[in-house]
């Protein structure tokens, strides 16, 4: 009895949680005006792809899609390289001030990113990089959380492995890509996932530094589209689907890494 009630409750709340997505998906397949009716219909009476066609032809969303994809992949690759190198150094190297520098980095995580935005904008502007891909890529090249995540993981790699590789004549770079990177693979996937999705979903910074419609990422393009199409739910839902689907697919394939990343970050702190 108790078990049945519990399951009914879980099923109902799951459906409620997912209902915005269900409605989004079905409205995106409706013709103009069909989502603006009372009572609302949950399933399109006449299935149509016209909203998607509209987005990709007339509104040229494909370039926004490619911008998002390119930027997310580029930031992920670069930051993964930089963060893993630094994470390894903080985990395994011995040098002066190591703990001091690391603690300084950690405590500065409390500074909200918004504080840096104005000077960063001026800095990039003086370099002529506003309204270019660089304005997104450069500030994303490394981040403290990523270094922290890798360092926590790499620190548990036994020193003996590294020592014996050194005896065999391996230098630090060989150790980095032959031992550290393979052993850190799970956390690298986790961090890659965080970074990819974080860059894909980011809104405020791209909104500030990208001014040209052809350079907009999907969220910025979508916000912009909303200004003219606030009365067209069908079109806007199709845009939302296009924006959400890629991150959702990536997440579904790699969810175990994402979940374990949150858990390790949360429990160890």
């Amino acid at each position, binding site marked *: 009895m*108790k078990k049945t009630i519990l399951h009914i409750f*879980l099923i109902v709340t*799951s459906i409620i*949680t*997912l*209902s*915005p*997505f269900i*409605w*989004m998906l079905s409205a995106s397949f409706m013709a103009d005006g069909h989502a603006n*009716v*009372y009572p*609302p219909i949950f399933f399109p009476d006449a299935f149509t792809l016209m909203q998607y066609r509209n987005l990709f032809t007339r509104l040229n969303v494909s370039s926004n899609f490619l911008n998002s994809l390119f930027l997310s992949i580029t930031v992920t690759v670069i930051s993964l390289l*930089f*963060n893993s*190198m*630094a994470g390894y*150094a903080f985990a395994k*190297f011995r*040098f002066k001030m190591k703990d001091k*520098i690391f603690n300084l980095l950690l405590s*500065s995580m*409390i500074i*909200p990113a*918004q*504080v*840096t935005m*104005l000077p960063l904008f*001026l800095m990039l*502007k003086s370099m002529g990089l506003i309204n270019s891909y660089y304005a997104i890529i450069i*500030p994303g*090249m*490394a981040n403290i959380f990523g270094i922290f995540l890798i360092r926590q993981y790499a620190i548990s790699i036994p020193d003996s492995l590294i020592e014996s590789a050194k005896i065999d004549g391996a*230098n*630090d770079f060989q150790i980095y890509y032959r031992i550290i990177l393979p052993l850190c693979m799970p956390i690298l996937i986790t961090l890659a996932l965080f970074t990819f*999705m974080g860059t*894909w*979903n980011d*809104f*405020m910074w791209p909104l*500030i530094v990208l001014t040209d419609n052809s350079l907009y990422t999907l969220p910025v393009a979508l*916000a912009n589209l*909303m200004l003219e199409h*606030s009365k067209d*739910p069908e079109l*806007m*839902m199709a*845009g*939302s689907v296009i*924006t*959400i689907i890629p*991150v*959702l697919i990536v*997440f579904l394939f790699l*969810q175990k890494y994402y*979940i374990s990343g*949150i*858990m390790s970050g*949360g*429990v160890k702190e």
Partner: protein
Amino acid sequence: MKKLDLNKENIRSAVIFLSPALLSIFIFFFIPVVAAFIISFTDFDIYSIGDYANISFIGVRNYSRLFQDVLFWTSLKNTFYFVVLAGPLSVAVSLFAAILLNSKLVKFKGLFRLSYFIPVVTTLVAVAIVWRFIYHPKFGILNFALSFIGINPIDWLGDPNWAMPAIVIMAVWKNFGYNMIIFLAGLQNIPSHLYEAAIMEGANSWQQFKSITLPMLAPTTLFVSLITMIGFFQLFAEPYIMTQGGPMNSTLSIVQYMYQEGFRWWNIGYSASIAFALFFIIFIGTIIQFKLRKDE
């Protein structure tokens, strides 16, 4: 002799391995933080962007202006209202969900966990747009659903009294899955023999929750409350998409006000002081949370 060489080698590779990340963090994070602090004591505005010679130091005038700025106080009040409402609600919902999912009775745990978690990974801008239509007073599915339990249509985003609660509901829906995962990890770390002993002594579920689960989860709860609070103070995209700060500035947030002053009107000095006010609030909030836990 050999030892010395190794050390030298060590320092050289430490520099090589650290410099890409640390240099970019130094140049694109630490320098901007310091620069923002300095800018917040200047009258940096649109005329200074073309020619930095137009900038002059004005002491704490930006900060004293904050105190008299009605719009700033409104944004402060709104943001606090949001954090105080959405923060505890989000933590409570995620703890509740985690406890349910942690029960041994539950089948298809992974599936339920996934359904609760999906809002977390989806694009905030896209879901804010979806919710904007869900909240539509005439055609929205929320008012339609509420009509079944006899609630009259609410103008969620058009009524100054309802706009912020509407954003709170959406934010809780979007975020609770994240905290739920952290709570699940915390719950799994509680040794089961504690519960077994409590059951032997005849403790009911509520007593077990109060005297075992909550105290054992205290560090997790602190962490969850902290990251939730810090994240919620930075409220921006939801009002930007759903209400543009309205109606009647009832959802204007601190970050949104900072964005408007800085990047729309180019009052960069003043905007920097708003950013530091946000930093200061988050800093104080963090200290208070730590203090509260210690006292317990």
